[in-house]
């Protein structure tokens, strides 16, 4: 099978940021993404999920440059102020044109 290497960027953030993060992901040029509702704990103070909602996980498969672009935006505008983590990994896909 003919597979291609692309980047999977995973963002876990407070649910409130959903629309703004989708905007950033699209703005950077990603073709699609998957969002799931998740929960967990982190280094910030206890989350107040009763009122403000739980966390979301956004997964984006894209070119390395696109993922870098999103990560740069996250670092500038989101990491200092909000509860967000993000990480990248390599993935193998078929049908590369679906993602880039």
């Amino acid at each position: 099978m003919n597979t291609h290497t692309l980047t999977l960027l995973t963002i876990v953030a407070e649910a409130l940021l959903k629309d703004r993060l989708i905007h950033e992901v699209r703005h950077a040029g990603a073709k699609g993404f998957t969002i799931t509702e998740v929960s967990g704990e982190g280094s910030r103070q206890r989350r107040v999920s009763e009122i403000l909602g739980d966390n979301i996980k956004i997964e984006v498969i894209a070119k390395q440059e696109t993922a870098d672009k999103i990560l740069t935006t996250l670092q500038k505008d989101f990491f200092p102020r909000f509860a967000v983590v993000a990480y990248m990994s390599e993935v193998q896909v078929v049908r590369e044109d679906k993602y880039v």
Partner: protein
Amino acid sequence: MVLAFAFGIVCRLIKSELAIPRDLYTSLSIYLLFALGLKGGVELSHSQWQQLLVPAIVTVALGTITPISSFLTLRYLGRFSIADAAGIAAHYGSVSAVTFIAAEKFAITNLGEGSVAPFMPTLLTLLEIPGIQIALAIGVIGLAKAKRTESVATGSPVQDVSGPSFGAVWHELLTARSMVLLIGGMVIGCIIGYEGYASVKPFFDKGEWMFKGALTLFLLEMGLVAGSRLADLKHAGAFLIAFGIIAPIVHGALGVYMGALAGLNAGSCTVLGAMAASASYIAAPPAVRMTLPEANPTFYLTAALAITFPFNLLVGIPLYFRMALAMVGNDLP
């Protein structure tokens, strides 16, 4: 109803696994807010606009004063950071719909049907927005100024304090669930009038079993949330606890006084006082989190939910009622 709230707190204290599913909580709040708007609209369709004008002006004035007084107190007496003080002030400048319902019910129980002016839900929607906006503006401008001073002092370049624009905040506040439901309900209520309302009355009316039941369940959930925040009281500190009790008394007295100035009767003054005294927990928290993420949610949610809301329910409303009676007397036939 107060018992349901207390029961919720007890459930948390004994670490019961009881939890109201979030979807039910959302559904209940949608139902309550829409019912409130609908009834308000129906009443509005039969009242004269001139009667509304002075109370409306007074309400907007209240919505302007309470966030500023809250901010100044927290910032300069309580030594809170700009973001925290503004975040808490946004909650106290806005209004709690459940406190409104409880105050209305209290006045009607004590003074009888018709003792609360029919246009009070309109005032509720008027009071909801300005307080949040003013406090957020104070916070955003204050933070930007502080950052500029800091970067001048250290010689580092001015950091960009980008956040959502004020247009975006306005849009978010005006389209927030609570606002859309209240205003939408009112418009529909205005259109259908008494005749149309009669067909949905058993489901939506405040006097019916359905509404009372939903409110009781909602209060149980509020108790659960407040109970889980009780542990945070020790982080909140004595000043915030005192603020959560004294601020509603001062704002409540101001609300009653200004209601009396506007010529409202005792029942309506009680409700206006409770509105001014209450702290929001539906519209304000997401708005503050989005615009002032530097503010610690533990402070504003604990103050609004675990201190001020139960205080108003148990002590505040009867207190504003007494103030209202002392100021305007019971002029009902």
